[in-house]
């Protein structure tokens, strides 16, 4: 493995900022979409950025001990590390060092960091929220893992750049969504839960547990949470496009794809009420898992 | 010193004891042990002579084998005699009210035991066996307690019935072959292969089985061992049950080699192991546990005998030797914890060394590797797999399941010993009876020297099949064949 340092360093700085910017635009799009559905104008273009800057400039914010602060750092660090490993047109030297499995596990590092931070501030609402978040994670990860297994079986490799290369080389019908529609659908549903969007949004339920994990977060802590949300939107969409939509040949098509991918859960989130925790688990383990298993079976048969 | 002195001397002393006791009352105390000690010395010298010049055959009364009675002074006989004398000397009962009479009985027991070990004549074996039996009835009733008397009487009835059946067996053998000498009988296998011969074997197994604690015949064991003095039950469990097995060993090794009658002994042995261990698991007080466990061990020995073959006999001998050293020590150690098992909580701390040794000896009975018990069990399984064609799996399964039950009840006791509970007195003195220590030392020596003892046992087994009279039964696995057939084993 030849480490050409300077290329690495550039990627390390550029990719996260790129991810942050795209993430901000995605958050804006989400809020605009919700506004359109509720027949109102929606926030101006730079609103998400201002929110974060406002939170960061707050004077009084409450910290519950070192672990609270360290966990936020772990959160941000985990997110940044994830962005670096995502194969983006032009920059994918790091993507070669890790593969789909590594990425899935890297996604869990920030979640665990946040969980530790929230528990450190010893607020039962936070703990209950985290318990629900982890239960939801257990729920949506089962179908997601099956789709990843299916993809690995189909492409024969788990290295993301190669997956993109395989899909692009066969053109449109080479795409994952075309090759394995069922797995793509199951992945879409589990992505919905991964982003914590409406039907599966139990762990931030404001009414019952005071927005769950975010209860004790104030000022820059809450700001970091917002940053995490941007990164999360970007990461999930890029991963989905890589696996199922043939990744980005060039930036233009790549951006269109990831915005379309994000648009789907954003629209769905506005029309659903909220599931109870065990209902989330029961539902996700029933339908999407069934679809994914059938998809996997189909892939295995080929 | 020719070996028949071993028989004559104790009997002579026994005859003179009642008269001597009238002259000087204290005779009852030292007379018996002194004579047994002398007898031990003679036996050791005779044993050493056999080591040097090999087994001898002594014609009693000057009459050659088939006519007169033949005593076979071979490894098996003399080592059994030495062990018997040693055990009687060490386990001399103390608490019996009537010392003089008990000494007489023990002297007779020693003399008869030596005779039994060496005799090679079927009827002579029966007479000495009956002598040992009557002596044991007397010993069982020695301490005069009510229950001991009942136990002794019930044992007497069983023993008498058994001896009648054994005599019936001998009558059948004599009617069929006309001779009583074991070596002669060995040569007449086709005469004995008929129904009469096999029936005689079954009857003799039942007759001699009473003493050897075989399965349906051993109801007396828990009763007698529970109500006699611990030293007496140690003596009976230790060496006297082995004498019963010795008779069967001689019979099977020299006469009934591969006869189908042995299948009866095999299943009696297996049932003995299974019911013995299960009953021990269900027993409530320590003495009964040890009694049932000795039934189980004797069952194992019976299975080993029934399988025959060189490995079978060596397995039987090791299991007997191991049980001979372990059981008396267990009885003596358990003497400190009378009463029901529930009362044992925490007693281990009262006699720490005793408790630790109890566990060590139990390990050998279960068959944990470095200890001799393991080699016995290993050879037994080896014999089963080689000799038993169909049903070997079932047999091994039953025996191993019984071993698990054995481990269960021994370590239930051990857990109670070391468990919490008001330890009576936290005395640091090891509290181990001297005699038990001797047995344990012998046991440790055996576990260290298993290799050398193993080779000696191989010689003993070779001595059992007199080479000059070829084994009549062809299907009796020829020792040489089974040896080199196993590659580098021997």
């Amino acid at each position, binding site marked *: 493995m030849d480490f050409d340092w300077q290329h690495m360093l550039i990627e390390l700085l550029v990719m996260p900022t790129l991810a942050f910017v795209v993430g901000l635009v995605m958050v804006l799009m989400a809020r605009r979409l919700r506004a359109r559905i509720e027949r109102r104008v929606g926030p101006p273009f730079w609103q998400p950025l201002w929110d974060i800057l406002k939170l960061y400039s707050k004077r009084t914010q409450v910290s519950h001990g070192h672990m609270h602060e360290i966990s936020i750092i772990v959160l941000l660090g985990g997110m940044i590390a994830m962005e670096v490993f995502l194969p983006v047109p032009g920059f994918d030297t790091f993507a070669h060092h890790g593969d789909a499995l590594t990425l899935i596990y890297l996604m869990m590092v920030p979640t665990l960091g946040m969980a530790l931070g929230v528990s450190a501030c010893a607020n039962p609402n936070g703990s209950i929220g985290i318990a629900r978040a982890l239960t939801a994670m257990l729920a949506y990860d089962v179908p997601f893992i099956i789709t990843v297994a299916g993809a690995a079986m189909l492409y024969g490799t788990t290295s993301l750049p190669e997956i993109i290369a395989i899909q692009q080389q066969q053109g449109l019908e080479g795409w994952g969504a075309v090759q394995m529609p069922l797995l793509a659908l199951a992945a879409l549903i589990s992505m919905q839960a991964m982003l914590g969007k409406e039907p599966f949004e139990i762990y931030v339920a404001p009414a019952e547990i005071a927005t769950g994990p975010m209860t004790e977060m104030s000022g820059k802590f809450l700001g970091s949470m917002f940053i995490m949300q941007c990164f999360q939107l970007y990461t999930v969409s890029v991963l989905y496009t890589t696996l199922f939509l043939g990744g980005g040949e060039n930036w233009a098509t790549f951006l269109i794809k990831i915005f379309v991918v994000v648009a789907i859960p954003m629209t769905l989130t506005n029309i659903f009420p909220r599931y109870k925790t065990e209902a989330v688990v029961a539902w996700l383990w029933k339908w999407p898992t069934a679809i994914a298993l059938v998809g996997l079976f189909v892939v295995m048969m080929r | 010193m020719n070996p028949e002195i071993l028989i004559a001397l104790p009997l002579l002393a026994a005859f003179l004891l009642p*008269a001597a006791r009238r002259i000087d009352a204290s005779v009852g105390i030292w007379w018996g042990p002194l004579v047994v000690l002398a007898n031990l010395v003679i036996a050791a010298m005779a044993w050493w002579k056999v080591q040097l010049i090999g087994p001898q055959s002594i014609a009693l009364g*000057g009459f050659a084998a088939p006519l007169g009675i033949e005593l076979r002074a071979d490894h098996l006989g003399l080592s059994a005699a030495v062990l018997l004398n040693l055990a009687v000397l060490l386990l001399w009962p103390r608490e019996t*009210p009537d010392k003089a009479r008990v000494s007489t009985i023990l002297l007779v027991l020693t003399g008869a035991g030596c005779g039994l070990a060496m005799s090679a004549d079927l009827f002579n074996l029966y007479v000495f066996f009956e002598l040992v039996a009557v002596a044991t009835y007397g010993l069982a009733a020695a301490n005069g307690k009510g229950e001991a008397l009942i136990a002794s009487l019930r044992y007497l009835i069983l023993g008498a019935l058994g001896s009648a059946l054994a005599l019936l067996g001998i009558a059948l053998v004599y009617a069929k072959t006309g*001779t009583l000498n074991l070596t002669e009988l060995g040569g007449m296998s086709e005469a004995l292969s008929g129904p*009469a011969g096999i029936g005689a074997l079954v009857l003799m197994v039942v007759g001699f089985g009473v003493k050897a604690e075989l399965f349906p015949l051993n109801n007396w064991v828990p009763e007698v061992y529970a109500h006699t003095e611990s030293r007496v039950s140690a003596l009976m469990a230790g060496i006297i049950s082995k004498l019963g097995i010795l008779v069967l060993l001689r019979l099977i090794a020299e006469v009934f080699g591969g006869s189908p009658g042995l299948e009866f002994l095999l299943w009696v042995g297996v049932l003995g192991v299974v019911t013995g261990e299960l009953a021990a698991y269900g027993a409530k007080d320590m003495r009964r546990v040890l009694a049932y466990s000795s039934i189980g061990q004797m069952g194992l020995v019976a299975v080993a005998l029934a399988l025959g073959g060189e490995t079978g006999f060596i397995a039987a001998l090791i299991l007997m030797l191991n049980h001979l050293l372990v059981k008396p020590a267990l009885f003596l150690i358990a003497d400190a914890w009378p009463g029901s098992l529930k009362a044992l909580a925490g007693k281990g701390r009262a006699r720490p060394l005793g408790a630790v040794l109890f566990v060590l000896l139990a390990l050998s009975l279960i068959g944990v590797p470095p200890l001799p018990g393991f080699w016995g069990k290993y050879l037994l399984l080896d014999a089963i797999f080689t000799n038993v064609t169909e049903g070997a799996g079932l047999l091994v399964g039953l025996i191993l399941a019984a071993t698990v039950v054995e481990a269960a009840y021994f370590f239930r006791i051990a857990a109670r010993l070391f468990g919490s509970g008001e330890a009576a007195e936290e005395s640091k003195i090891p509290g181990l009876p001297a005699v038990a220590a001797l047995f344990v030392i012998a046991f440790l020596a055996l576990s260290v020297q298993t290799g050398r003892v193993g080779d000696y046992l191989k010689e003993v087994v070779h001595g059992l099949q007199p080479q000059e009279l070829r084994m009549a039964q062809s299907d009796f696995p020829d020792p040489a064949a089974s040896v080199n057939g196993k590659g580098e084993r021997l």
Partner: protein
Amino acid sequence: MRQFASLLFLFGFAFFLSVLVGGLPFGAAPMQVGQAIVEQNIEATGAANAVTGVLLAFRGMDTLGELTILFVAATAAGMVVERRKHGVSRDSVAGFILLAGAELMFPFLLILGAYVILHGHLTPGGGFQGGAILAAAFFVPFLANPGRAFQGHAMAFVEAFAGATFILLGIFSIFREGDFMAPMFLGTGEFGQLVSAGSLPLLYLALGLKVGAELGSLVAEIAAAPGSDDPLIEEPQAAKDL
């Protein structure tokens, strides 16, 4: 249920017994060893009665074992029987004729017993049968009058020395003939007379006395035991001197 089981097994046993016995050649006893003994008996043992020859010469050890069994049984019985407290006498129940008759029978029984023992090697009978008759000599008066005190001391000494002579003769024969219990002094007397068959009559005499004395001492034990309705003796029977 028990009755049924025992009957069932009894019939089974009877059936098998008949199968076993049926197989035996009756009347055609193989006599492989028996014939040789019958031929060698006269010059080997000198005893007219071949059974005595077998008992004392060919299979001497059996007889020794058997003698000891009787001895052990008597000792064990002595140990088990309780001692009666002194002074608790038992009234005699027998009538005059029985008492007198018993007293009268005593010497005759002794003579008969002695005769049977001494002619053991000539006529059927011998040590055991004669000994039993001697013992009967002591039984009859006791049965007639259980209360009478019984002098056992002499009995014990006779018993001890008789047994000892039996074994000492055997050991002596090792030095003379080289084998335990080998017949000795075969030359003395001539065949068929009272003085013949060398050491066998001596052995039988010792044996007879031993058996007689033993059974006699057994009688003494029982005589000293409390009646079945006497009070239970609680203290352990420690000092058991006769």
